């Protein structure tokens, strides 16, 4: 009786602390929602009647194209690499992650330059193969091309999820299915894919959110997504309230979509036995080898090698004019803000995941989900919501807006979901019996965390940290609106040159972003591989 009581008060304290944290994270959204109450809805109705149908159509179409190609680029290489033995497999496995280091807007600007009439591809053809040049002289600023370009930058979210999941599904199920006479292909579609649904979806969710948030690339390609509607009313109609209302509207659509997915997945919520046997890898036939190489090579070549060669080419071309002092300065700025923000995110996310394990409580679950949802808002809208929030305080706001604290607050809000996602699957993976045993042995929550959860989730924590870090290095819209005076990051500088179409000048900054990302991702890859190996052994 006595013990139970202590536990209860303790858990109340914990729940209280998570509620406070969650409120801090979602407070700007609340401010945003409040700012839309009692607004003049005439502009909203106007947009609704004139544009939103078209915008919604473009949004859905772009999401579908990007998702389709992200799945193609992500799922199949992951499957081949998990189940086959072939030369170059380990190199592919690393290279397939690397497009994640290239921000979507850099990918889009780079490709539009490569493909443009004055770009290298068409110039080369004009000079050497004039007949072919006519055929390739096309308008490449099309929604379909944009979808593919975005997929090239975003598919690693799905690849990562699949690699982990396929290795967790393990060979038991696969062997069983094979011995029941199912072919490899059939096993893949009937067993592996359904078992990996949840993780594929979590990767896809990130892809879709990124598509919904993108503004620069989308505008350049003449595509109008829902986010364009938000900026149409803010930038063109000078109506911030309507922009906020649309952002809130978008937010609720995403929440609805997200909850539906949760609801359906709950019905399928089964726990499979984690993998115990090493994956039996197959040595493929020659024809299959060609297919495998093609499948793995395509995303690597288009998503990483071609853009990176183009960027390096530009750096060499501009080399004499590079201000290296500035490059170092911006690199350290970028590094510091990313480090601080991702550390804070990880601390909060780990705390939440740990509490969710030791305290089974509905409120906690709800708040846990709630702090992921800020990911559904475009960066610029998060910036706006913070400006609204801080300017509604009566004290001197200059102290806050335009200070690093607010910038970091905004990053934390925006990327909480990215940090939570890998932690969640890891924390959920381990059986509840661990905790029960520990509690029965009289361990305090802190001890339980330190001696059990921290070690067993170590890799996931590192993964979460690295992924958030890479994302914040690439962040653009929030930094543009909220950064302090004379404070630039690599992303900001890249963007400023890129929109002025000085792609060569921007290249050293984009290359630095990509290199930082690549180094972090190689670390990440090592950790993930260890995870996969551990679950194999």
């Amino acid at each position, binding site marked *: 009786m006595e013990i139970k009581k202590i536990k209860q008060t303790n858990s109340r304290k914990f729940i209280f602390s998570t509620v406070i944290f969650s409120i801090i994270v979602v407070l700007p959204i609340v401010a945003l929602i409040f700012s839309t109450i009692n607004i003049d809805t005439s502009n909203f109705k106007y947009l609704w009647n004139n*544009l939103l149908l078209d915008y919604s159509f473009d949004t859905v179409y772009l999401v579908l194209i990007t998702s389709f190609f992200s799945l193609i680029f992500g799922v199949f290489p992951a499957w081949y690499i998990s189940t086959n033995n072939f030369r170059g497999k380990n190199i592919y496995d690393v290279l397939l992650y690397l497009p994640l280091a290239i921000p979507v807007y850099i990918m889009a600007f780079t490709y539009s330059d490569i493909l443009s009439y004055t770009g290298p591809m068409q110039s080369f053809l004009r000079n050497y193969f004039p007949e072919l040049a006519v055929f390739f002289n096309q308008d490449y600023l099309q929604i379909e091309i944009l979808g593919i370009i975005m997929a090239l930058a975003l598919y690693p979210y799905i690849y990562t999820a699949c690699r982990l999941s396929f290795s967790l599904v393990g060979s038991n199920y696969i062997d069983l299915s094979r011995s029941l006479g199912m072919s490899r292909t059939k096993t893949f579609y009937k067993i592996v894919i359904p078992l990996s649904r949840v993780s594929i979806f979590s990767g896809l969710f990130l892809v879709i959110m990124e598509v919904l948030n993108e503004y620069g690339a989308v505008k350049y390609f003449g595509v109008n997504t829902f986010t364009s509607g938000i900026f149409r009313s803010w930038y063109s109609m000078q109506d911030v309230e309507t922009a906020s209302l649309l952002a809130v509207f978008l937010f609720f659509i995403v929440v609805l979509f997200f909850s539906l997915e949760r609801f359906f997945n709950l019905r399928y919520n089964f726990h499979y036995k984690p993998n115990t046997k090493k994956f039996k890898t197959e040595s493929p036939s020659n024809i299959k080898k060609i297919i495998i190489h093609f499948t793995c090579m395509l995303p690597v070549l288009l998503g990483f090698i071609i853009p990176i060669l183009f960027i390096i080419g530009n750096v060499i071309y501009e080399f004499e004019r590079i201000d290296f002092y500035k490059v170092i300065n911006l690199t350290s700025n970028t590094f510091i803000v990313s480090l601080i923000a991702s550390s804070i995110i990880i601390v909060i996310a780990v705390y939440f995941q740990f509490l969710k394990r030791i305290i089974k409580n509905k409120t906690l679950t709800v708040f846990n989900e709630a702090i992921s949802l800020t990911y559904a808002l475009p960066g610029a809208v998060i910036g706006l919501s913070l400006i609204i929030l801080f300017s509604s305080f009566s004290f001197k706001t200059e102290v806050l807006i335009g200070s690093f604290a607010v910038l970091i607050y905004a990053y934390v809000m925006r990327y909480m979901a990215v940090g939570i996602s890998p932690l969640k699957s890891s924390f959920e993976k381990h059986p509840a019996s661990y905790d029960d045993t520990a509690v029965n042995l009289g361990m305090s929550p802190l001890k339980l965390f330190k001696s059990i959860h921290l070690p067993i989730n170590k890799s996931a924590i590192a993964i979460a940290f690295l992924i958030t870090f890479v994302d914040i290095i690439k962040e653009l819209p929030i930094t543009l609106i909220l950064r302090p005076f004379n404070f630039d990051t690599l992303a900001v500088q890249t963007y400023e040159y890129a929109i002025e179409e000085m792609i060569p000048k921007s290249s050293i900054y984009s290359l630095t972003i990509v290199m930082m990302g690549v180094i972090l991702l190689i670390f990440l890859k090592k950790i993930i591989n260890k995870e996969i190996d551990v679950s194999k052994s």
Partner: protein
Amino acid sequence: MKNFIYIFSALLITSCMPNKKNSNEINIYSQRHYNVDEIQYKNFEKLTGIKVNVTKANADELIQRMKNEGDNSPADLFITVDVGKLWQGGDMGLFQKFDNESVFENIDSQLLDNNSYWVPVTYRSRVIVYSNERVKKEELSTYEDLSNEKWKGRLLVRSSSNAYNQALMSSLVENLGSENTSRWSEGVVANFARDPKGSDRDQVKAIAAGQGDIAIVNSYYIGLLLSSLKEEEIKAGKAVSVFFPNQGENQRGAHINISGLALTKNAPNRDNAIQLIKYLTSIQAQETYVKNSFEYSVNPDVSPDEIVQSWGEFKKDPVDLNSLGTNRNEAIRIFDKTGWK
């Protein structure tokens, strides 16, 4: 581990502190992110010892930030590339009027604000460029003529979310009235060679690629293409010629827009700001602008860059520049109604 926590919290705490107050400085919110601006600020710092702090972002975001910061805003100057945003800021009460007439001294009076809320630093024209191969100069005349059926499938322009297009449409609303402008826009949309997309430079490249014959672009982009380090871009620039519309005897002249700055309502470093404005409109700084960005100088004594001079002189539309802001909402509605994406 403990040390790490100490360092970490120290970093956190210092990050919450505002930038140190320094009376010998000036804070700018700017939409301009051209290299030439950095050169100007550095020269000014050398000359006066006043430190220039800049935050660059989209004009509307900066306006929103100033509005919400209210009296506490640290900004002294707001700089943008579209007069519509300057009008808007003045209309929202974010700026103070210039009572110091000497800031206008060096400036062409046609370019000045009737309400004295803003000062122009450069101007540019939104012109028509045409393919040297497929279009004869005589075929072109006015903006109005762009809705003529003879341009069907031949006209290129970027999207209506672009402020330069919005300013052009606003000027047409002012000159022709809403109804005529709507009809014009319908005709123009019917003549599009493709859906609006890309940047101004992309429209020129599309002419070079043969995807269209004429395009509406800002004048300085042609200068930038012609002075590019890439041979292919120079070629694309050479494939077109610049045409200033509405130059006939009874016609109003080509549409222009300014890049300009305004003094914020509570500018904490007002005197420094005035000094910077005087510097930026001086002959020395104006020459730096025209050489680097191919814009036109607001100072009548400074002539444009050679490339720009080669296009000849032109008559400017004398419409009150503030009307490019007041008509903005109407312009947007015309874009949407007539399907100009």
